């Protein structure tokens, strides 16, 4: 599957996603420039982590206005796959492709550590190789990761099954008040969500940082493999795309 990785000024996990997609999975990857207006036949668009535009206005706010984002929206509206990681999650919220927003971590400090994630959906293009209730270990590295929305919106999010990952204990217990398990204070321990159609998904932890044995943790690899295989199962692959 051809994966387009958007490079905003200040993106810094772009190479990491490229490495996993191209060298670990052996799939086709390309970089997309923030100023461009087309996606070069990408079937999967990834908005990588980093500090786009320094996150100076508000995390993701300026990147959400980039020329490429109009093309990303069209792609998403047409059912195309869009994955946001960390800063990518913040950008997708700012762009209105996902609900809610990411606020400053509860402890008001940047957090770089491993967390545990409970899988809540295993029927998405991103998660079909995972099992519901399965617990993954993944690194986080962010200052603005507290997922926030109005209570009624959160209720709707849960009702629609849009919560894909929750921060948890190593054995899958969820407790939003426990700052060891829910390190940034996210509401309802939400770590990753999808849109209603399930083609747009984002999470704060970094699956691209735990996809190789040398990293000491391969828990993120199945997420990438899920996406890579999803086009085959869903038949959504576009004519003329690479590979």
């Amino acid at each position, binding site marked *: 599957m051809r994966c387009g990785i958007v490079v905003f000024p*200040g993106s*810094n996990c772009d190479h990491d996603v490229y490495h996993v997609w191209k060298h670990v999975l052996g799939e086709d990857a390309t970089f997309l420039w923030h100023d461009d207006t087309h996606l070069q036949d990408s079937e999967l668009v990834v908005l990588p982590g980093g500090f786009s535009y*320094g996150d100076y206005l508000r995390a993701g706010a300026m990147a959400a206005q980039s020329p490429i984002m109009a093309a990303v929206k069209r792609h998403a509206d047409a059912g195309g796959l869009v994955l946001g990681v960390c800063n990518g999650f913040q950008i997708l919220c700012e762009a209105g492709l996902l609900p809610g927003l990411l606020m400053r971590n509860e402890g008001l400090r*940047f957090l770089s*550590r491993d967390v545990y994630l409970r899988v809540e959906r295993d029927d998405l293009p991103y998660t079909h190789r995972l099992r519901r209730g399965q617990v993954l270990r993944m690194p986080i590295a962010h200052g603005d990761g507290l997922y926030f929305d109005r209570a009624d919106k959160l209720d709707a999010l849960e009702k629609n099954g849009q919560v894909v990952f929750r921060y948890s204990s190593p054995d899958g217990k969820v407790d939003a008040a426990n700052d060891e398990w829910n390190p940034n204070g996210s509401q309802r321990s939400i770590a990753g969500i999808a849109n209603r159609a399930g083609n747009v998904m984002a999470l704060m932890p970094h699956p691209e*940082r735990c996809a190789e044995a040398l990293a000491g943790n391969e828990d993120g690899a199945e997420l990438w493999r899920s996406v890579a295989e999803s086009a085959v199962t869903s038949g959504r692959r576009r004519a003329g795309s690479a590979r």
Partner: protein
Amino acid sequence: MTAVLDQPQVDVALAKQQGLTAEEYEQLVEVLGRTPSYTELGIAAALWSEHCSYKSSKVYLKELPTDGPYVLQGPGENAGVVDIGLGWVAVFKMESHNHPSYIAPYQGAATGVGGILRDVFTMGARPIAVMDSLSFGSLDAPRMRQLVDGVVRGVGDYGNCVGIPNVGGETRFHPCYDGNILVNAFALGVARRDAIHKARAAGPGNPILYVGSRTGRDGIHGATMASEAFSEESAHKLPTVQVGDPFAEKVLLEATLQALKSGAVVAVQDMGAAGLTSSSFEMAARGGTGMELDLDRVPLREKGLGPFEIMLSESQERMLFVARRGMEDELVRIFHRWDLEVADIGRVSSTGRAEVRFHGEVVADLPIASITDEAPVYRRPVREPRDLIVRQRPPAVPPPDDLAGTLRRLLDTPDLGSKEWITRQYDSTVRTNTVLGPGGDAAVLQLKGTPLGIALTCDVNPVYCALDPCMGAMQAVAEAVRNLACVGAEPVGLTDCLNFGNPENPEISWQFRESIRGIAKACRALEVPVISGNVSLYNETAGQSIHPTPAIAMVGIIPDIRQLPASWFTTAGDRVILLGDDRREHGGSAYLRLLHGVEQGRPPAVDLDAETKLAELLRLLVFEQWLHTAHDVSEGGLAVTLAEACFGRGLGAELEVSLDPAQLFSETQARAVIAVPSKHVKAVLQTAEDFGVSARDAGKVGGGKLQVKLSGGKLAADVEELRQVWATALPRALGL
């Protein structure tokens, strides 16, 4: 030369205000054959400051071995370069940002990271890791908790935003830093061997391009400030601290690496200390050329800056490029793609002079070589400290009565407690090269596409250095080699950050001379060249000097990183083997200092032959994949080493050793603890014997307790209980 309006009259009094001595001012007048203009005085004062000229340290720095089979570039460039094999090179350097960080901790520390990153990527290398060596005062000292918080946030926010993992370093707390903290930042980059660029301005007629952030008033005279002792007035020097913009740095990094690949760049240098002055003068000096600069074309942040300020501003995230004539458009295109401002501000000339114009007038016309190469050099008087003999007297070593309690109290200090409160604020895994992050003996990064690993460590024990600067410096080098050996890495080079007090004090100059002697001796014996470094003098406040702190950052190469030992116990049933012998050395130990308030005696003697043998043995054992665990014995002695090894997985150990209780806290060097699967024990012991390293099978890994049977006592402690104390010691000491 005509005088520009409202420029002050230059005389010796003004020269003194700018940091020159009367003799240096006379020398300047002699070089020029006339009275310098105000701008010329500012330029010369900056270039002749201690920070830029190394005038008090130069005579000693020459003693350091800088050559080796792998060295491609030693000191003198923006950063050193070593060959690491398979067509790759490593580029690294460490630099201090002490004074700015004491005045404005967040910005001072942040811009320290920014500056060292630019030193690395201007060489054409992509930065892949940073580390920092932080020395704070006692946490009860005024402002100290805010300083810790500010520095950690500054280091973190800058590196996190640029996207370079912070993989290690060290943090210490000692009252000698109460009035003068140290922030030393290290950066490592990698490049293909043929992609390295040097900062030599060549080719008269080549355009000089200014790239990056605009020039403002911040940081004017930063270099001069860094060359003075602190006084009450220093607090008013806030405008001399620069403000960092990591986003601008990230963009500059990507654009610079792209520009260097284009073939359109002749030379590039970061506008660091002394800004436009040092970058232009140093590039021209290395190239043996001259420069014409038109300051009217320098992009300014605000109106009203004069030539003096423009030449000396230390605004951050700015680069000076020498472009290949005719290809400048290619560079401009690259910079504009990254939304960076570019200005053509002059030409390389063949005159050997720096001709600087402002409003059409020549405001400076200086012979570059005379100013840079003939900067003053001092061999300052040295004197062994009068109280040294008293401080070196053998200390009384009170025997520990309650061993578990003693160990717990040591682990309950910010010094020996976990530093995770700090490292959790630094992104250590971005770029996905990190194989071993912070917290072990050495950090390890993979070099993607190769089997190679790059190992990094940073070490110094200032308490040892204060008691015997030569031995202390040797110890820092030896410990770095040992830390690298614990992950199987062979050292390829080191960079040093030499932090000392006022060199005009003969006792400080003695400390400096002795430290250099120690580094040089250890480097020769252990075959590690010094490829770059930095000297920071005048680290004192109100006459109170810091301990000599020659921080050593060392880089090593691991031939194959598939299976590395951890620095903690991983597998119950493994045999615990002690390498090296204890010699009851408590001088300068953590045990005496932290628990008994005594900083006395000679520091542990460094046996360079024993260190060489131990390092060679460890490297072989790791290469053979016989080890699950390797952890070096350092501060706190065997007791603390064993405790740390238990914490990683919460696995205890049961040992029996023929040591008395106090020896558990002795800090004899050239020792390590390894854990070996039973099937390899015989081979390991035999190999150790072959290498001439004493090795003892002392017990096994397992259970939830650390138990050590001694001659005349027993240590028995619950690992989880100790771990809790250790893990929370620092945040508790910070009052969090």
